């Protein structure tokens, strides 16, 4: 039995004597596509100790049929006007809805694209946040990360970054600097070290009900700009609409220059995308999310429609249907050739 599992059993035992709160999440995930018929059970054990004023402890263990992994293990100290987080953490930077060019610290799992319960993989890090009157300054350091994916090595060098955030005239504004370390990908590609400068804002279009956001970065290594720019609107109490444009500075605007190996890294390979989406809350238990992901460079697309249903306080169900279309050599044309024009996925989650 792995040592991590023994530690967790130990912690669960001590849950009865200490004030840990535990949440157990059980999943059954399935995905249907051409030549793919997966059925994946997964369990997550979440332990939170947050009864103390000065610190909190959060642990999250994932167990699936292949492996178990400590995805989150951090302690957060609440100091005078500042917080200090140590350990394995999910770092959530960026203001975009569908894409976050400045959110580069955590890896995405291979099958995350159509997984509604997907969470980014944790990364060992130190995060210090200093709070001021209406702003905060965050400093972040991530440690070397080595892992094995499909029996191949994947290694990330440390990153360090700063983010200054302030609310001005009802806009959240962020200035970002990231010194990104080299990343040796398991498929044999090396992403060079980079300096990234970012400017984000989120707020409302004046004299309208529309929200607006911009997440923009400049990559010194690529000498190029990445961005996510969008608008959104809640209306009639049940509907949420958003429209986002994404510029992928790592991609190519000509399909003849696409690197299809990047698809296995959950990276987009085109440069310009448009994503309109509509969420409808039919009831407090049932909602749907319909979106179009359009590659503007090659006109290939995915139309997705997912449904979320909260059966009761413990069980929720998600089902998604995806229509994938594109010409030969296009990004989503490649997907449809590999996996079929119509894909479907479903998940059942029990949480207690």
């Amino acid at each position, binding site marked *: 039995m792995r040592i991590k599992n023994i530690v967790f059993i130990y912690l669960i035992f001590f849950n009865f004597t200490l004030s840990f709160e535990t949440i157990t999440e059980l999943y059954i995930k399935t995905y249907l596509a051409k030549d793919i018929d997966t059925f994946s059970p997964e369990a997550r054990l979440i332990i939170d100790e947050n009864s103390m004023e000065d610190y909190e402890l959060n642990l999250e263990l994932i167990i699936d049929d292949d492996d178990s992994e400590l995805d989150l293990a951090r302690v957060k100290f609440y100091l005078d006007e500042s917080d200090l987080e140590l350990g394995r953490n999910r770092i959530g930077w960026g203001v975009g809805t569908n894409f976050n060019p400045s959110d580069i610290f955590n890896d995405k799992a291979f099958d995350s694209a159509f997984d509604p319960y997907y969470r980014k993989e944790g990364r060992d890090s130190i995060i210090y946040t200093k709070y001021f009157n209406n702003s905060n300054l965050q400093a972040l350091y991530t440690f070397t990360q080595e892992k094995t994916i499909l029996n191949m090595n994947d290694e990330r060098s440390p990153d360090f970054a700063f983010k200054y955030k302030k609310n001005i005239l009802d806009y959240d504004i962020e200035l970002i600097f990231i010194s990104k370390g080299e990343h040796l990908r398991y498929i044999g590609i090396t992403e060079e070290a980079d300096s990234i400068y970012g400017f984000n804002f989120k707020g409302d279009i004046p004299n309208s009900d529309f929200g607006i956001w911009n997440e923009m970065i400049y990559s010194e290594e690529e000498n190029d700009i990445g961005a996510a720019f969008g608008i959104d609107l809640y209306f009639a109490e049940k509907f949420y609409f958003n429209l986002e444009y994404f510029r992928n500075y790592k991609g190519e605007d000509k399909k003849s220059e696409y690197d299809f190996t990047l698809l296995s890294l959950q990276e987009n390979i085109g440069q310009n995308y448009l994503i309109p989406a509509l969420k409808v809350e039919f009831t407090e238990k049932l909602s749907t999310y319909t979106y179009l992901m359009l590659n503007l460079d090659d006109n290939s697309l995915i139309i997705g429609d997912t449904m979320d249903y*909260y059966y009761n306080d413990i069980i929720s169900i998600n089902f998604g249907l995806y229509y994938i279309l594109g010409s030969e050599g296009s990004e989503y044309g490649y997907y449809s050739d590999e996996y079929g024009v119509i894909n479907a996925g479903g998940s059942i989650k029990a949480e207690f």
Partner: protein
Amino acid sequence: MKKTIAFIFLITLFSITHSEDGKWILQKIDEFSDFQSVYSKSKMTIIKKGKITSTMEFEAYSKKVNNDDYMLAKYYYPKRLKGTAILSKDNSIWYYNKRSNRIRLLSKSAKKGSMMGSSFSYDDMEMNYLDDFTSEILNKRSKNYLLKLIPRDKDSKYKYLKMSVDKKSFLVKSIEYYDDNNIKFKTLNIIKYKQFDNKWYETELEMIDEVNGKLTRIKTYEDSIKTEIDIPDSQFSERKLKK
């Protein structure tokens, strides 16, 4: 003739000094039920066709800061919502999800949207009747005043409200919400009040969606209520959203 003039003068003087207009009634409502700060724990239940479809519990801090209403709500039941928090201040709403560790500033239109699938909108939870509405008395002959409130914000989704107020206690009994087509589409009933610090706090209320029949009941746990406490402004911040 002189007696007549004197009589008219006295009546006019009395009217000026004791004018029962809508604004005066709203001021009395504020006097008896408007708290500067409150902490409480509540349970929200959504009921359709007589059956409970959803239950959630949250704790909330609220405070008046420079005529603005600040609110921080943290959900702790059911487990799928645990760690979800909402901060509302300065006309903005921030939403935090613990599992993704991301804070989102929502667009202002989100305030008009449903709060967690209930019949309440975020706007409904923060209405300041005195500042946000003009008012007129429709009826004062019964034991309740009936007021008509018209929102000052032209973009409000409500065309007007009808508010029933107890004449003796100046406590709001019910509010009917009307849309642009003069159709009543929501009704708020305040079922129970409890007295704290010489004022009255709504401890049980329900909102009925007249269109689909959904009923949302919010019941505040009376032993959790703390009023007029010293809540620092820093409690309503991103830092506290995540804590």
